[in-house]
């Protein structure tokens, strides 16, 4: 406690403990990566020992997490707030359902088509983003979210309408190469969802490190500046929404395979779903890699948890209160907070980082950098440089 007050009193901010630096590609970094991979495989294997009910819950978490990764791409990383991802989820789910029932597709072969349709619808919705911004763009996505269940109900000879689509489990048998029987569908979907989740997460991780990923964050944080840097903002926005739709559509396809029953009512493809996805993204941490998984875990298990304490509407009240409390005390989300904490101990730097080359002096270097950045930021916040240079020129010519 006393150290905190000391730090507050000190005029120069100084780092309490310098983090260990991990250079990418170094030996230590590789070991850490291997440990993480081993951990993931371990977790996956532990998952297979769960009861049927628990395993299906974990599968639900993984599927939601994939959908949230899609949302996170558009909203968390690129800043296009979408209230219509329920529809993209639904497009994928109904694509899978209809292909299995009406065209006798093998379930796993429907996934590429669900993804492609999600991509296409995402692109179409992304196009208005070229002209329409901010909350108005959210309205466009809202329109999609509202339209989807109505369209499903209207074209009922195709979609089953309000009665819904029922995919009997005989159509959802695991492929023969897995060696699993019809009654081990839960295990098959668990494995498929787990692998899908890891692959999608890694793809998004690599995407966010590419030029496109940097452009996406640029669109979110300083659209005007990045436009003058030659980034094609329009293309970035439309493409992002397309990719986002593809991932969420894929999750929808998995969802259809997992539940086997689709209906336009009941909250799987209505705005309620959108709210659930946004909530999961925010609780986990918008714009973070692990956030979608953590957030989905919370949103799948929290209602169950609150309903074990109480029943009925009180759990809804608790859910609302929990959301608000989280915003107050953890606005960066759980993954965001973990990241901040982890950075105090370990920091991953690119291989050519100067501090990484000279491990002995690295601590002082990074400390000094942090201080320097702070004072620059404070000065920059006070007076933007642009107008002042104008001022200098007008003052200069006044004499």
């Amino acid at each position, binding site marked *: 406690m006393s150290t905190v007050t000391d730090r507050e009193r000190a005029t120069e901010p100084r780092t309490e403990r310098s983090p260990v630096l991990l250079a990418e590609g170094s030996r230590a970094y590789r070991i850490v990566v291997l440990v993480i991979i081993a951990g993931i495989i371990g977790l996956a294997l532990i998952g297979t020992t769960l009861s049927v009910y628990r395993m299906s819950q974990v599968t639900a978490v993984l599927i939601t997490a994939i959908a949230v990764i899609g949302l996170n791409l558009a909203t968390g990383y690129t800043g296009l*707030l979408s209230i219509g991802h329920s529809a993209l989820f639904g497009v994928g789910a109904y694509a899978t359902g209809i292909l299995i029932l009406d065209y006798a597709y093998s379930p796993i072969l429907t996934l590429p088509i669900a993804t492609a349709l999600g991509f296409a619808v995402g692109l179409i919705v992304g196009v208005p983003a070229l002209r*329409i*911004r901010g909350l108005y763009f959210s*309205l466009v996505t809202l329109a999609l979210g509202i339209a989807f269940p109505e369209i499903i*109900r209207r074209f009922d000879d195709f979609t089953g309408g309000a009665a819904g689509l029922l995919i009997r489990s005989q159509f959802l048998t695991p492929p023969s190469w897995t060696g699993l029987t019809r009654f081990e569908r839960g295990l098959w979907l668990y494995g498929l969802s787990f692998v899908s989740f890891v692959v999608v997460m890694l793809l998004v991780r690599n995407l966010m490190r590419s030029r496109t990923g940097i452009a996406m964050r640029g669109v979110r944080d300083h659209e005007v500046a990045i436009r003058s840097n030659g980034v094609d903002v329009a293309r970035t926005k439309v493409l992002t929404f397309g990719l986002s739709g593809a991932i969420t559509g894929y999750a929808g396809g998995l969802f259809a395979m997992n539940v086997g029953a689709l209906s336009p009512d009941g909250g799987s493809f209505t705005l309620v779903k959108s709210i659930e996805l946004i909530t999961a993204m925010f609780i986990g941490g918008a714009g973070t890699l692990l956030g979608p998984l953590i957030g989905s875990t919370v949103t799948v298990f929290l209602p169950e948890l609150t309903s074990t304490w109480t029943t009925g509407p009180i759990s*809804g009240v608790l859910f609302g209160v*929990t959301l608000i409390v989280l915003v107050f005390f953890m606005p960066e989300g759980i993954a965001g907070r973990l990241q901040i904490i982890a950075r105090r101990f370990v920091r991953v730097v690119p291989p050519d980082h100067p501090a990484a080359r000279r491990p002995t002096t690295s601590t002082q270097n990074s400390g000094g950098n942090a201080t320097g950045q702070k004072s620059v930021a404070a000065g920059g916040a006070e007076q933007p440089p642009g107008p002042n240079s104008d001022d200098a020129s007008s003052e200069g010519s006044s004499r």
Partner: protein
Amino acid sequence: MELFVERLLAGVTNGSIFALLALALVMVYRSTGTLNFAQGEFALFSAFFAWWLVGTGLPVWAAVIAGMVAGFVLCAAAERALIRPVQRKSELATLIVALGLFSGLNAAVALIWGTDTKVMPSIVPNGLEDYFELFGARVYGDTVITWVALAAVTILMTLLFTKTELGLHMRAVADNAESAALTGVNTSRILMLGWGLAGAIGALAGSLATPLAPEQLSVTTMFPIFIGACAAALLGGLDSLAGAVIGGLIIGVVEAMVTGYVPLVGGAMQQTTAMVLIVLILVVRPNGLFGSKELERV
């Protein structure tokens, strides 16, 4: 002809309810720059409160006014206690708080008053015989009262903003809160007041809507109305009062006409059609019909 007039009037009536709630959304947007996702649920809570008061023997008009007071207090308190502290953090954080309020208020209504459907009496006589004819179409009392309410609220709000010092200060805070504070305007009070007024107007919308709504008063009554209002406010331009009113009426009438005259759509896709229309309008006018500012972070 009769059928057309009937559909038109029904559209105007639904549109009036959308417009009232849209006015509430615009009030909030003008004070804190937020789209209040929970506005419909605030209205729901106030309407249930008014219904409960009617049950205790209070006259309907008094209960509606008490509901408006409750809406005012509830919304003002939410702004002060829940929205203001997170508003500086991020837009997304504010939205999540609103979603939390949305979920919490809805569940609170169900918790306090139950999930069964209530019958909220109309503020005016609305028996089967209480109508007059307009171009052959029957017009009932609770239809007229929504028109009157919308007209009254619009006029009062216009007077507030153009003729009073308070309205001047509200416009100043909406324009630039810091500059307004520098002249001594109590911005904190103005923001609470903006939300409070929105709560009161929303409560009025909720109380008037329920006798008209097909499902009467239940926990799901306000959400479709909120969606219509949301679309109306955005169509009008989010910060324009006139825009909210015109936007609301347009959406009400379009929905009614499409339901009546486009067989492909029928009764099933009226909201979709309205939304598609709005998107098309936004593509032509990205800031709504009457929006004055670009709604984006620079």
